[in-house]
């Protein structure tokens, strides 16, 4: 695949694979990646290395994976990291209790396809392999029924910094070679086909430092906080259609209605809160989008936003999640 990621939000084909595979998936058509981010994605793709994307919450890290999959017309596999995640969880899950139960109580034949479930990276590696390779490896056919074989895919490992420290250390080798073994089954190791190596995107909120060894195997990109223009563009692409007529912003991100003016004022207010170092938990872009929806729903006017009337303060609970922060901005009476 020689196509490059542009970040324009335009899919490569009329019926993207992602959409075909997951009709419930919300196409990230409105997502716009700037040239820096696009360059980083292309570097990662070219070097066949995972892309580690960091940034404040709500800056579009997770959306990036959707956008890449959407633009490059590739299936997306998502792994949400948990504090209890281990390296093996990234490839497959083995239901030991079910296996134990089956073996002990129901005396069934050990059909491993019942107890093994490929996870995001495992699915990506398996889908990069050919049928012949999988057969030779001993992977049962039922496990492959949802997978398009010999195809490239995008893997999103979300919020890797939530995992224990061992997690990134443990997946170093697997990430590097895209190879794993299912210890519970008598299969050969599964290795990604070089021609269809998955595009791995990891996200981190920088809550924890990741090991140097892990970082060395990644391509790094930090998404800064969006500017006013960027935020308005996000609002325009994400909310304009969703909120219905009349339109909020035009192509130049200028308000075209009273509602649009409210949105611009709200975005500025959001930026003030976002950049306020005194707040304990500062709001993210995603929360801003929700807040703007609430503002529209409550019919809060531009003047309300500017004057911080009670109508506006009542909606700040959507943005601020800390009681001290709410007190600090006047949404709650001081203690």
């Amino acid at each position, binding site marked *: 695949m020689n196509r490059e990621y542009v970040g324009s939000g335009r899919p490569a084909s009329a019926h993207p694979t992602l959409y075909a595979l997951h009709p419930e998936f919300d196409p990230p058509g409105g997502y716009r990646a700037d*040239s*820096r981010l696009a*360059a*980083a994605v*292309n*570097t*990662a793709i*070219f*070097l066949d*290395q995972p*892309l580690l994307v*960091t940034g404040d919450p709500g800056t579009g890290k997770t959306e990036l994976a959707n956008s890449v999959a959407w633009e490059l017309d590739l299936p997306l596999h998502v792994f949400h990291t948990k504090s*209890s995640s281990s390296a093996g969880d990234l490839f497959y899950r083995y239901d*030991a*209790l079910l296996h*134990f139960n089956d073996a*002990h109580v129901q005396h069934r034949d050990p059909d491993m396809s019942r107890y093994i479930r490929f996870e995001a990276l495992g699915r990506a590696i398996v889908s990069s392999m050919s049928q012949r390779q999988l057969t030779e490896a001993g992977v049962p056919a039922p496990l492959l029924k949802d997978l398009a074989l010999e195809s490239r895919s995008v893997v999103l490992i979300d919020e890797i910094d939530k995992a*224990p*420290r*061992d997690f990134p*250390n443990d997946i170093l080798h697997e990430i590097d070679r895209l190879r794993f073994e299912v210890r519970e089954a008598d299969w050969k190791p599964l290795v990604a086909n070089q021609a269809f190596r998955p595009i791995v995107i990891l996200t981190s909120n*920088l*809550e*924890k*430092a990741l*090991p*140097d*060894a892990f*970082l*060395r195997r990644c*391509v*790094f*990109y*930090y998404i*800064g906080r969006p500017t006013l223009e960027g935020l308005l563009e996000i609002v325009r692409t994400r909310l304009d259609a969703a909120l219905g007529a009349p339109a909020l912003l035009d192509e130049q991100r200028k308000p075209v209605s009273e509602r649009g003016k409210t949105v611009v004022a709200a975005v500025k207010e959001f930026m003030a809160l976002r950049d306020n*170092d005194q707040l*304990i938990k500062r709001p993210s872009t995603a929360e801003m989008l929700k807040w703007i929806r609430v503002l529209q729903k409550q019919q809060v006017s531009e003047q309300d936003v500017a004057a911080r009337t009670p109508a506006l303060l009542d909606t700040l609970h959507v943005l601020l999640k800390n009681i001290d922060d709410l007190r600090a901005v006047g949404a709650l009476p001081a203690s």
Partner: protein
Amino acid sequence: VAGRSLQSPGALDALLASLREERFAVGTSEAVKAHRLVAAGRARRDDEWKFALAPIFARDPDQQQQFYELYDRWVGAQAPHHSIPLLTHSPVSAVAAPDQVGRRSARIAWLIGAVMLVALLGWPYLVPPRLTVRVTTQPTTGATPQPSQPSQPSPATPPRAALPERPQSTIDQPCVWAGCVTSTPWGWLLFAPVSAWILASLVLAGPLRRAAIYRRERQLTPPYEWPLRIGVTSPRSDDALATVLRMIRRRPTGDARRLDVARSIRATVRDAGCPVLHFEQERRAPEYLFIVQQRHRHDHFAAWVGLLVRILARNGVDARACFYEDDPRLLRLTGSRRPMRLRHVAEAWHPSRAVFVGDAASWLDPFTARPGEWTRIVADTWVERVLLTPTRDRGAAENRVRRVLPVRPFSMAQLAALPDLFETPLLARRDDTPLGGGLPLPPDHVLEHPSNGRDVLLRAFFTPAVFEWLCACAIYSELEWELTIALADVVAPDGSLRNERSLLSLIRLPWFRYGRIPDPWRPVLVAALPAERRDRVRQALLERLQSNPAPPGTFARGKQTLDMAAQRYWLDPKRLDARARLERTIRLVPDADVRADRLLTETVDRWASESAWPDASLRWSRFVAGGGPIKLASVAALTIAIGLALSRGTEPIPLPVPPSPATPAFTQPVIPDEPQVAPSPAGAAAEIPSTVTREAFVEQVPSSVPTPAPPPAQTPDVIATVPPAAAPPEPVQDQPSPAAGVTPLEFTPLPPVEPAPKVGGAASPVPAPVDLEPSRQVIPFASSSTAKGSLIITALTGTHYPLPNLTDLTIERQGKTVFERKNIRFDRYLDGAIEITGVPDGEYRVEVDPAGVSSQRSTVVVRDGAAKRIDVVARGVSIDAKDVRAVAFPPYDALPDALRSRLEASTAVTGFPGTSGRRLFEALSDLQRAALFNIFAKASQVRFPASDRSAWDYVTALTDVRSDRVFATTDVAMHDEIRASTVSGLVSEVPAALHQPPLGFSVANSYRTREKAGSLQITVFRGLDNDAQMTVDMDIDINSGASRVFGIISRTLTRSIVHPYDVQQVLISTQLLDPGYRLITNPELADAVTKGRGGGAP
């Protein structure tokens, strides 16, 4: 972005080298990735490479931004060499390089100015000079003293013989420069614009210079400092580090349990199929959060801890550090520029083990001295926590903090023991562990100031090797962590200093925690280092500075260039080129950079003191460095000033008439009339002396100027002629007649000044009048008046010199004006008085209204034909120092013993080595002598109540006589005496910040007497090596309060001094203290004084 392209051969390798210099992790894999990317041509445009390559090398947001900036700099650099070029000459030129347009215009301005100046200066050669002779007749009365007869008038009765009428020849000086230039229309055409331009330049010189400096500095960019990056590893041996790593990585057991499948199956099989489930305790990798106190950005202790944390992180330990300065509630994470609150950190890293490193006191509330409220966050968040402190002794702070935090000493062994501490709560509760061992920390009083023996005292707190290491650190102006570690290897190449014990004993010093060795200590420590080792350290320092160039065009680059030039100079102070380079660099960097380095400041001061004209060349160079047009203006102004001084216009100047029997030498020529002055009657004129002999001058004018012996070969002993009333001399504001209004102040011996006479219970600012002088102006009250009464009106300046202003005089009687004269000059005669004769008896109201000064009115009653005197003292009118033509000092033999003996004892005065006594006195300039006389007079007046000795009595010898101050060695008892006098209120203690101690001395204290004007400040310096050595710096300030502050600011900005002539006048006018010399503004008198001095007699 334009410049180099990545796809040119070798370009990428050059970029990688630059990245390595900037501490990016550029390993083989990163290099291969970058080469692959570039070879594939993955970027469409040149500027896209930045974004394509950054993800390979950046590891965090700051590095990403740093990469963008570095790439732009690298691509924009024009130099073919890959690394950023070293600054070879000056930071300013590197900065100003883009401003080619400004340079060109400056050059053009220079060229035009130079051409015009050449034309202007060459004008006399183009236009033939004219020579004119004018003969005038000056009516004079009386007889002229015969030159053949030695004039020996009595000092008490100056000669009053009238001069015979005689022709006066004057000649227009052969056309001197300015006169020639302005003598033709073409000359005016050239002269006028150049003069106007020069005038404008002079007016604008200050603002232009400031603008130029601002412009130059505006082009400089941060960073302001560039820490030396040497790439040190941990100073601890690998074994200890390995132990720490092994121990600290030990995995503790977690709270969760997980099904152990293998064990469960085995157990189930063993139990014949009966399910037996086994769970295993989950073990997790430990996470460490180090919260480190960083008192200063160069806090070595924090830097060491930070380095250890980085080493731990690099070796797989989940460790990170955040720093706080004084208040642990506000933290800064490593690699992040954004501050975080302790609460946020606690929320984000609550599962970690918290290791607090720093002083226990920082965890106490400064008001209650109890653990601060914020320590509750610590207690509530981190179960596993400990405070590691560099403090050696367990004090009150440690004991109070232990309620919240177990306190342990910081050491590698303690780091290795952390897992045990955390996993064994019992251990954590036992916090009676002794803190740091080894040598105790030097107490504050030892670290405060080096003094006699205190360097030895300091030495006692270190091993010899560590003390040498400390001395080596003092060579550089700042303490930087990496440099300190590198210097350990320079001092001890065998690596014997690279151990934890040595390092801890050094970096526990407050100096290393605050990143600076106090100024007084640096020279002492540097001097304590053997010369050979000192040079080795300087050499090593130079190499480090050269290999770590700050980016061009930054403030840091200038400082670095200065450091390098200074180190090169100190390596070999005899090398003239090194000194020249250092001087050049000093001129180009901000003053603050120079002042920041005590050693450098001392060097500059030494240069200045060695110079015959202290600091002049440096000052001039700084001024000239202001910018092209200003340079031109400076040169032009100097040239014009010299030209004007030479020419003094085209006014006729006296043509020396050859001595003849009828005409004495030095006869004053024609002086223009003053029409407003009523012509004196012949009788009155006969009373006025037309000449003043040397003796008369000495007697009348400077009362303290001793009477010199007349030169035997000089027959006519008339040194000046005072013109008759009909032809009064050109107004001179001189003179020297303080005797006219001041209580006679004898100089030999200098008496203590008596308090001013009390009038009505208050001290009268006006001294008691003296007897009338015969040389006053006499004006008849009315032509027809036959009355006998007279009014003698004296108008003096605040310093008791005749009032130089034009003055209106009005006399009223019963509401009617009976006498009125405009524009009278009181300074025409030596006593500054006029006498109005023929005043009838009656009550008069006299109004004296000098121009520019408020008028004064007095009522006087004339009875029985008596003479009545009215004295008017106009405050604020004094003689401008620049109008002083000469100064009459007493001869050496007439000096008071107290002064003469000190001069004879002074054999090492700066600038006059080996000179003392009379030779020293005669070698001093007028300004230096004036300052010496002022300070001598004032210091003799200040008497300490305890011993009744004056401040001067303690002076043993002079070491430096400057135009505004005197340095002298004194008896050590003086300090105690002054200190005791603070109680009595004679002096008060004042800051000594602006007083630089001489080499080998340190400031002990500074005191000032309490006068509002003319206060004596005595700054005491103690010897660095010998406490018994004491030197004082004595100076006199003419202001007090806010005006003194503004005066200091003004003098600092203009780099000027308190002029000794101003001081003299202040002492006379406010304290009736006469330093004993006279200021001469009358050119003729000045000439006579100067000639007298040149002839061997003052």
